[in-house]
C-alpha cells in the first residue's frame, strides 16, 4: 500500500547532509527482547526486515542481547544468527535479568555510543517503547514509533519509516535528518517471520556493562504471570472472525462466537465495538489494538477503515461481509459477500459443521 500522494510537509527545505561526527555510524541493529526466557517473536520479525535493510546498505546486521546470565544470552545470540544476524552484542549482568528502564537504557545507550550503528530497531511492545523513548532522548536522535513499514531511501541511505497518521485514512513516511542512529519501533506481526536456519553462525561480541544493583533505584518485587494465557493467542491465531459496528448489537456477537467455535478460530473486533463494551479490549484489532496475520480473516460488519486495515491486511485470505458494496473493505478483501451478516454468519457456521461432518465420514 504505497502510492505516493501529496506531501503535506515536505522535507525539502531541510538538508540530508550528514554531520561528519555521524559518518562512522554503520550497521543495522535489532534489540532482542526476551521475557521469561523466551525471545519475543517481534525481534525475529525485525531481524528478517533488518537483514533486507542491511543488504541494501551493504552493512552488517547485529542483534543486541541484554541478559542476566551467559547461558541465556548465548542461546538468544544463536537465535539471532538463525534469524539472519551476522553478529550479536551481548551484555551480561545479573542486574539485567528482568527488564527495568534504568539499567537497560544505560546499557543500550553505552553500546550505541561505543559501536555506532546507523539504524536501531526495537519492537513496539511495552518494553520496546519504554526503552526506545529513553535511549533516543539520551542520544538526542529521532525515533519513529509504531511503524508499519521500513525502507531505505536509495538517494541518501536514510531510513524511511512508515506509520499510520492520525485521524484520517493516511500513512506517513518519516525520516531522521542529520542524526544517528535512526531509531524506529515496529509493531509485532506487521512484518513476516523469516525462516529459521539453524546452520547460520555469527560472531558474539561480549561487552561488560557498567552496572551495580545498588545504583538501580527501581526494584522488581514480583512478576505476576497472566492467568489467561489465551488472551495473547489472537496475535497468532490461524483463523480470526472479527465483527464491527455493522453487527448492530452486542447479542449478535454470539453469531461470531458460534462460527469461531466451528472453525476453531479467535474472535476479533473493531475499536467502536470494543468501546461499546461488546467485547474486551484485548480483542481489538488495528492501529491501537493488535496486529494479526492469520491464514483466514472473516470480517463481518466492518467498514475497513485504515486504522483497522493496518492491523489485519497481512492475512492470507480475507472474507468480507457487508451490505454496502462501496465499503472500503472490499478494496482489499479476497472474497466479498454483499449481504447482511446476521444471515450469512449462521449459514457459514452450518456449512462448516457440514463440511467437517462430511470429512469425518470420508475417513
Amino acid at each position, binding site marked *: 500500500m504505497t502510492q505516493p*500522494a501529496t506531501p503535506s510537509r515536505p522535507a525539502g527545505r531541510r538538508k540530508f547532509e550528514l554531520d561528519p561526527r555521524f559518518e562512522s555510524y554503520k550497521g543495522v541493529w535489532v534489540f532482542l527482547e526476551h521475557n521469561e526466557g523466551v525471545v519475543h517473536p517481534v525481534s525475529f520479525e525485525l531481524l528478517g526486515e533488518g537483514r533486507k535493510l542491511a543488504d541494501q546498505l551493504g552493512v552488517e546486521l547485529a542483534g543486541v542481547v541484554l541478559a542476566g546470565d551467559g547461558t541465556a544470552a548465548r542461546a538468544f545470540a544463536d537465535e539471532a544468527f538463525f534469524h539472519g544476524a551476522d553478529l550479536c552484542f551481548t551484555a551480561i549482568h545479573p542486574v539485567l535479568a528482568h527488564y527495568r*528502564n534504568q539499567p537497560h537504557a544505560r546499557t543500550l545507550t553505552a553500546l550505541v555510543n561505543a559501536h555506532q550503528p546507523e539504524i536501531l530497531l526495537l519492537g513496539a511492545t511495552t518494553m520496546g517503547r519504554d526503552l526506545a523513548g529513553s535511549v533516543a532522548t539520551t542520544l538526542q536522535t529521532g525515533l519513529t514509533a509504531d511503524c508499519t513499514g521500513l525502507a531505505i531511501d536509495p538517494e541518501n541511505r536514510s531510513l524511511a519509516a512508515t506509520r499510520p497518521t492520525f485521524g484520517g485514512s493516511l500513512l506517513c513516511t518519516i525520516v531522521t535528518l542529520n542524526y544517528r542512529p535512526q531509531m524506529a519501533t515496529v509493531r509485532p506481526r506487521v512484518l513476516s517471520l523469516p525462516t529459521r536456519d539453524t546452520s547460520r553462525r555469527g560472531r558474539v561480541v561480549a561487552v561488560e556493562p557498567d552496572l551495580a544493583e545498588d545504583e538501580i533505584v527501581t526494584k522488581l518485587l514480583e512478576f505476576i504471570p497472566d492467568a489467561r494465557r489465551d488472551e495473547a493467542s489472537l496475535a497468532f491465531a490461524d483463523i480470526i472472525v472479527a465483527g464491527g459496528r455493522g453487527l448492530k448489537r452486542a447479542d449478535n456477537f454470539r453469531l461470531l462466537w458460534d462460527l469461531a467455535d466451528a472453525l476453531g478460530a479467535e474472535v476479533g473486533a473493531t475499536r467502536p465495538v470494543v468501546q461499546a463494551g461488546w467485547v474486551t479490549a484485548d480483542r481489538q484489532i488495528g492501529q491501537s489494538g493488535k496486529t494479526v496475520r492469520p491464514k483466514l480473516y472473516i470480517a463481518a460488519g466492518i467498514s475497513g477503515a485504515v486504522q483497522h486495515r493496518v492491523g489485519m491486511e497481512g492475512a492470507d485470505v480475507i472474507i468480507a461481509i457487508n451490505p454496502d458494496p462501496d465499503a472500503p473493505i472490499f478494496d482489499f478483501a479476497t472474497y466479498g459477500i454483499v449481504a447482511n451478516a446476521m444471515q450469512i454468519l449462521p449459514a457459514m457456521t452450518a456449512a462448516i459443521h457440514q463440511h467437517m461432518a462430511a470429512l469425518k465420514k470420508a475417513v
Partner: protein
Amino acid sequence: MHILVCIKQVPDSAQIRVHPVTNTIMRQGVPAIVNPYDLVALEEALRLKDQYGARVTVLTMGPPQAEAALRKALSFGADEAILLTDRAFAGADTLATSYALASAIRKIQEDMPIDLVFAGKQTIDGDTAQVGPGLATRLEMQLLTYVSRIDGVDPDTNEITVQRRAEGGVQRLRTRLPAVLTVLEGINDMRFATMADMFRAARYPLVVWDREAAGIDDVGKIGLKGSPTVVSRVFAPTARAQKAEIITTQSEQPDDIVATLLAKMFTKHPQLRAAIRPRLA
C-alpha cells in the same frame, strides 16, 4: 505531595475526515478534546490527592486554544494549570516536545518540588507513547510506563509501588520518588466535575508561559528546528492490485452464497482446510 499531569488537547479523531481528492485532513469543525488517555492519568493523580493530600498541577503545550483543556482539568479538581504556548514550539516531534515540557517542569519545580509526573499512555493524534519516557530521561526521574495499578505511596520512605503491564504478565515495581508514570487506559473512570470546581475552573487565572518564561534559551531545541524527525511524505493506502471477488448466486440465498464461497476458497486455498480445528461444544 506535588503531582504534575501532562495533558494535550487533540482533535476528536473519531470525527476527522480525509479529503477524498487531496488526501489532506479536514480539521474544520472537528471539536478539540482532552486526549482521553490523559484523563486517565489525571484521575489517577486526583485519587492520590484524595488519599494522601497533594497539589495537582496540569501542564499543556499547545496553541492558545489549549486553554480549554486546562480548564476542563481544573473542573475535575486540578489545583493549578499552566499553558505553555509560543509560535516557536510549533512542529515539535517527541524529542522537541519533551524538551519544552521538561524545561517548563523544571521551572515549576522552582516554586514547589514535584514528586510525581503523570503522562497518558499515548496521544490519539501523535500516538507515539514517547513523550513520557522522554520526560523521565530529561528530568532524571525514574520511569514507570504502562502502569495498570498504583498499589500505594509511602510518604515516610518516599517510595511508590505500582503494577506495570509487561509481556505475558504484570511487574510489581517499587521506586523512589520523584518518578514519571504513564498509565494504561481502563484502570479508572473519570469522576464528575462538581459545580464548585466548574465555577472555579471558569474563573481561574491561567498561568501562560512563552518560551522565555519557561526558561528556554536555545530555540534550536524546540519546535520544528529541534525535531530530528521529518515527515517526508503523506499518502493514502491504495487498494491491493485486485479488489475482492464478490460472491453471488442466482438464488441470493445465504446458504447458496456460503456454499459457493467455501467451494471456491477451498479449491484456491487448500491450505485453509487444515487450519480448521473445531472446538468441541
